[in-house]
């Protein structure tokens, strides 16, 4: 196991290094001046000469890359071309907001997704299976940006049950600390904490529910297929043969083993979830990473694109490695395969 951890972490480190090289190259690939693209300072700005010097733009690209890395670790990611906000501080706040809805949606997806998958597998090729499969197929094919609009139109506009967009009623002045609105309310303790909390909850409900559909149906499919594989195995038959009750076989033998395949696929599921989070943020005006990134691509705000892409890609890669490690730690037989392959 330590060998595996070391290997995975080394790979992650190398990949992240490659990622920073890529992000550095972006400032050359974007149209315009590389200093402006990476620092967000225009050519006619009086600070331009100093910034260009600090970022090493007087010598060769290797020195420039070294200075880029130094700036990166110092948290100096340049300023936005649009409103001169420092990119790093803004990204920190928006990162919290993005993680908030993504994690909540994932948590909400787990219980119905897994249980529907188990139910479908136990009723293989019966009515319940067909209904669940049909639901999951349509849930998987529904374009999230369209479904979110329909949900807003029906739930928010037609019924008036929930707010249309935003993070909280703007009347509550919540000091942004982490970016995640629910945690911020708990931390800053405004006068009307209870009411503010309720308002934030009402705002967060619709985006999280819409976002949770995709992971739910994917988990259902994964769990169903994996359960079907496991139910064919000999140890299930032997479990029945030695007289265990059906619930005991299912709960103690089938489900824990079926989870192994599900955990392996969680990484790609999370990638899809992040994509959908970006789209959902745009629709619900959620002040998150994706919303800002997409706006900045539209407005050609290069420092923000550079920083946002770096952060999202780094997040996805790190989560992948963490999931790999968890998978290997939880399921020793996977580890054996890995060593044999290495």
């Amino acid at each position: 196991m330590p060998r595996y951890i070391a290997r995975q972490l080394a790979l992650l480190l190398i990949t992240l290094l490659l990622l920073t090289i890529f992000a550095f190259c972006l400032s050359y690939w974007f149209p315009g001046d590389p200093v402006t693209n990476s620092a967000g300072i225009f050519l006619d700005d009086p600070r331009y000469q100093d910034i260009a010097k600090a970022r090493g733009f007087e010598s060769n690209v290797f020195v420039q890359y070294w200075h880029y890395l130094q700036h990166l670790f110092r948290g100096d990611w340049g300023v936005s071309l649009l409103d001169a906000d420092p990119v790093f501080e803004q990204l920190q706040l928006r990162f919290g907001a993005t993680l908030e809805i993504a994690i909540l949606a994932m948590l909400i997806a787990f219980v119905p997704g897994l249980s529907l998958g188990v139910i479908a597998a136990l009723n293989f090729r019966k009515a319940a299976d067909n209904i669940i499969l049909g639901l999951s197929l349509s849930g998987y094919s529904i374009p999230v940006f369209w479904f979110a609009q329909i949900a807003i139109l029906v739930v928010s506009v037609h019924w008036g049950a929930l707010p249309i967009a935003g993070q909280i009623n703007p009347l509550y002045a919540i000091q942004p600390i982490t970016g995640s609105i629910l945690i911020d309310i708990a931390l800053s303790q405004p006068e009307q904490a209870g009411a503010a909390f309720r308002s934030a909850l009402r705002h967060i409900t619709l985006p999280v529910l819409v976002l949770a559909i995709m992971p739910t149906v994917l988990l259902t499919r994964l769990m169903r297929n994996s359960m079907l594989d496991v139910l064919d195995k000999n140890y299930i038959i032997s479990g029945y043969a030695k007289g265990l009750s059906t619930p005991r076989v299912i709960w103690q033998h089938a489900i824990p083993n079926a989870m192994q395949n599900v955990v392996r696929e969680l990484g790609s599921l999370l990638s899809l979830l992040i994509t959908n989070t970006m789209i959902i943020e745009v629709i619900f005006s959620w002040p998150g990473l994706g919303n800002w990134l997409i706006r900045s691509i539209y407005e050609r705000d290069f420092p923000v694109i550079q920083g946002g892409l770096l952060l999202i890609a780094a997040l996805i890669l790190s989560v992948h490695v963490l999931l790999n490690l968890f998978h290997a730690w939880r399921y020793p037989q996977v580890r054996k395969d890995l060593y044999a392959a290495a």
Partner: protein
Amino acid sequence: MPRPNLYYEERTPSPLERVWLEFRRNPLAMGGLYILIGIVFISIFGPWLTPYGPNQQIADAISLPPAWSENGDIRFLLGTDELGRDMVTRIIYGARYTFAYPFLVVLASASIGMLLGGVAAMTAGVKSSTLKHLLDVIMSIPSLLLALIIIAITGPGLENALLAIGLVLIPQFLHVTRNAIYDEQRKPYVTASKLNGVNDFYLLTMVFFPNIVKVLVVQLTIGLSIAILDIAALGFLRLGAQSPTPEWGSMLAQSLEVAYISPWVMALPGIALFLVLVSVNLVGDTLRIAIQKQLER
């Protein structure tokens, strides 16, 4: 199972026939197939089927609801949008942008990816784990994000979006082809061909290819579903097809402003997109099940 006739003859249907039988057994899959055929027909012959142009504005018919509602007009079966453009016409024209272009792009990137994957699997030098890890990294980043990176460099636009999606899909096909060839490499029939002394090109095209084409077809449907969804999503985010283009995603984006007054302008492109995606996924799933059954035999 007891067989009633003594002199029975067991005829094994050909692989293609078995796929067809699998489709016939599942009415939903047949429905998906018919919808796909319909979409292909519409995207080829669309311009001859429609009475109006995609951007032709009819001044006396602005924001008309579909024909079956009270204020509807039979000239416009599914109503008109806020600029007086016929919805049926726009959706039929949109099939080209949302289905046909992604389809062509997927075909192009599939052929490039398969070629590279074949070469990668055949050459001994690239067998190192470097390529595998690199592919793993690229594939772990979601396709839409990769497309966003490319569009950030090239700038918004339908051509750039198509190019971006095409580039993004290549690694996936490369990966699948390479893995499929790896799985086949140890099988006796490959050894037999090698002993026969065939050259690498023959081995790749005549020995491997017919045996891995099933996997590639399934990957093709997966790629198509990703491409359609991503092109529409980029259009929706106003980074793909731009405003007057009747691409379904960008039609959805425009409909945001009038969603409350004329909800059908928003509902229709979404329903069309949903139907296409469901059919592509259904056909892909059925193909996968059919192939799995063939492998189990």
